[in-house]
């Protein structure tokens, strides 16, 4: 069973569109995250949620809106996509803040 699963794996879309990436974890973890990995492999945290509550919101454009309907899910909605949004987006979860992260397989977003 996949511990942290995110869909879709690949997402190709045009500038200006709105898209969502879904993430689910079956580890019973309390904390979930979204990370962005750019073309140089640099990994930067975007958001973290603990028990459905937003804990960390880095300097991310407000076009990015996370939604956590329950503690096992953390979805990422992106409005008005821009070329610079092209990256691999990783969902992750951990037992609590500071515990090791379990990553999903990533969603490669390409904005044309």
């Amino acid at each position, binding site marked *: 069973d996949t511990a942290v699963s995110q869909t879709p794996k690949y997402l190709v879309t045009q500038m200006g569109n709105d898209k969502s990436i879904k993430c689910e974890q079956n580890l019973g973890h309390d904390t979930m995250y979204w990370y962005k990995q750019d073309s140089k492999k640099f*990994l930067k945290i975007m958001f973290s949620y603990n028990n459905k509550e937003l804990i960390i919101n880095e300097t991310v454009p407000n076009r990015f809106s996370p939604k956590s309907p329950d503690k096992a899910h953390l979805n990422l909605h992106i409005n008005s996509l821009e070329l610079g949004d092209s990256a691999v987006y990783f969902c992750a979860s951990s037992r609590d*803040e*500071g515990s090791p992260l379990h990553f999903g397989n990533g969603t490669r977003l390409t904005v044309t």
Partner: protein
Amino acid sequence: AQSVSQHNHHVILSEAASLELGCNYSYGGTVNLFWYVQYPGQHLQLLLKYFSGDPLVKGIKGFEAEFIKSKFSFNLRKPSVQWSDTAEYFCAVNEADSSASKIIFGSGTRLSIRP
């Protein structure tokens, strides 16, 4: 604010060579430290972690890392690398004594092993 530095951007070694990848962090308080590995086309996986206790930490696949508090370092080592170790390696740190602390990653070191 905490930061993590990995000074080696790309390391190329032959099989059976010894490996040491550098990692330094900037936070002066208590830290949790991690090394993650990302094989080509895959997600990040935990190699090893340090929370407290013995500063020499052993991880999976023969990797180990040593926490040297006075040097703010957590270097990754492996005595003899294999071709299958080709991957991107990320050091990460978290402020253990802060609330709402996040895990911050270094910029990664690409390891290429020549067969």
